[in-house]
């Protein structure tokens, strides 16, 4: 590579939170890992920008799904204005959408407003229903909800040594997504009940409080012989999210309402007119963990064959006993695990490099010269990321809470002096003290200064996180 050649300037706009899943972090980091010859910078949409960084002209702006999933938030009008100037100056803009069946009109309008060039979506059918305006002028490509990391796969234990026979965590999906969204939890519950009756050790739950985060999820999956799944999706078309609001409102008044009652009250006759389905990232996670998958019989990316790569469960559960019998034959299931791993993981067909290709292929022309503004942005973002890295995520979060406190409630718990911060509350003093000990005081003062007049900061109740370096 010619070291003097200018690099492509790529800006990824994201919305990482303290509670973001590892899949989201892997997804974001893949651009820096796989985009050779590019200077990839990550900007959190809430992160305040100094004025000398705002005039950047990136070669490519990539807007990630975690940002776009805020489209139903009342803050969306402020969010979409915030970085539109950067998008206008960028040569190309790519949107990576997920869950685009929900509040899709807001997404479609945003794509037109930001003049997006390419849209990646996991939904491969009825795109004209979801994007009635963009479908005419934008390029669409398939982007999955999860990919496989190209690092060597983790070592996993053989099926015979795993303590749990059938394991899964499935969320009870909200009713506003329609009947199809309820199917995943229903299928898991039906198989779990049947397996329990047949004497298998079962650990399947639909309760949020039983879910695992980060590494714990993979460890759990790797301790199960079998897991159960299907494509995710929705069957209710809710363009601006009004059905969502109606359902939430109904549920607040009738917390024990059944799905049928909610349907009759909030969206009679509107469900199941379209099916918007997408592959779940669990497909790849299970294959990486060496766990045999019991999946609803349907098409999985054209690469998985029933009985060869997974145990197929019919949609009407008519072959439930056949599947349970097959689960007893661990030798055969070990072959199925190896086949699925070959098809999904070792084939390299679903590496993160494929996501990067889908997002950027053909959009990066000759790199533009590096401007002063881009250099300022790069150094500002690296400084912010470095602080978070050095301080650890917890202290970074605490500092941002402190900034909120200083700006939000200057007369109650915190008073400010001309130099910056004089803190009354013990909690605020403690955070300030820890930040000072680590030399973060100038950064903290800079954040206070930048946030004070930031229209989004004044309204957003959330804490932001910069992207970790690896």
């Amino acid at each position, binding site marked *: 590579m010619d070291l003097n050649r200018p690099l492509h300037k790529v800006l990824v706009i994201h919305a990482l939170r303290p509670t973001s899943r590892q899949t989201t972090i892997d997804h974001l980091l893949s651009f820096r890992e796989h985009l050779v010859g590019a200077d990839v910078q990550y900007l959190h949409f809430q992160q305040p920008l100094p004025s000398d960084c705002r005039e950047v002209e990136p070669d490519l702006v990539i807007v990630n799904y975690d940002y776009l999933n805020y489209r139903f938030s*009342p803050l969306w009008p402020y969010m979409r204005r915030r970085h539109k100037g950067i998008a206008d100056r960028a040569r190309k803009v790519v949107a990576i959408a997920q869950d685009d069946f929900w509040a899709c009109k807001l997404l479609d309008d945003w794509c037109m407003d930001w003049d997006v060039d390419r849209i990646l979506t996991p939904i491969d059918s009825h795109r004209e229903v979801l994007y009635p305006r963009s479908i005419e002028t934008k390029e669409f490509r398939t982007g999955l909800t999860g990919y496989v990391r190209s690092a060597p796969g983790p070592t996993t234990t053989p099926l015979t040594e795993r303590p749990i026979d059938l394991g899964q965590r499935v969320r009870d999906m909200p009713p506003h997504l329609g009947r199809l969204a309820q199917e995943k939890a229903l299928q898991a519950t039906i198989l779990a009940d049947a397996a329990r009756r047949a004497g298998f050790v079962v650990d399947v739950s639909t309760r949020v409080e039983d879910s695992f985060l980060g590494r714990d999820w993979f460890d759990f999956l790797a301790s199960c012989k079998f897991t159960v799944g299907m494509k995710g999706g929705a069957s209710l078309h809710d363009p601006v999210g009004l059905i969502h609001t109606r359902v939430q409102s109904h549920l607040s008044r009738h917390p024990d309402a059944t799905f049928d009652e909610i349907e009759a009250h909030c969206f009679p006759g509107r469900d199941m007119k379209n099916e918007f389905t997408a592959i779940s990232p669990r497909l790849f996670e299970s294959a990486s963990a060496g766990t045999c998958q019991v999946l609803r019989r349907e098409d999985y990316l054209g690469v998985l064959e029933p009985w060869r790569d997974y145990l197929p469960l019919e949609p009407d559960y008519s072959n439930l006993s056949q599947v349970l019998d097959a689960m007893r034959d661990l030798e055969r299931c070990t072959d199925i695990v190896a086949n699925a791993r070959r098809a999904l993981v070792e084939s390299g067909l679903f590496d993160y490099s494929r996501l990067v290709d889908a997002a950027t292929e053909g959009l990066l022309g000759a790199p533009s010269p590096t401007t002063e503004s881009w250099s300022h942005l790069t150094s500002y973002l690296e400084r912010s990321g470095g602080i978070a890295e050095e301080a650890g995520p*917890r202290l970074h979060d*605490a500092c941002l*809470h402190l900034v909120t*406190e200083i700006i939000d409630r200057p007369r109650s718990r915190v008073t400010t002096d001309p130099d910056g911060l004089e803190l009354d509350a013990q*909690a605020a003093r*403690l955070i300030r003290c820890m930040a000072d*000990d680590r030399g973060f005081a100038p950064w903290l003062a800079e954040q206070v200064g930048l946030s004070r007049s930031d229209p989004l900061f004044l309204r957003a109740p959330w804490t932001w996180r910069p992207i970790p370096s690896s």
Partner: protein
Amino acid sequence: MSLDASDIIRLRAAIAVLSANRHDLMWASSQTVESVGEELMTEVLSTLEFAAVPGQSRLLRVTVRLPAWMQYMGQRAVLLFPRIARRILRATGLHHQMY
């Protein structure tokens, strides 16, 4: 200078106080006074006394009875006044959820 386990506990407690998150305040109040620190524990307990219980606010109970479109417009309209909006969020415990 990396954080040790006791720093993490005190930071979690401090965040709980500043954000008035009832769930985190409950966690902090269940720690020992030695690990959190006497002054900070006093703040934890006094904040917990007034921290909103999510879903229990009278304002919320009233607004869910409004038609969906009115809630939708109301949520957006209140953002024209950010300080009032933040005060409502804190008072209702909604500031730890997506809208």
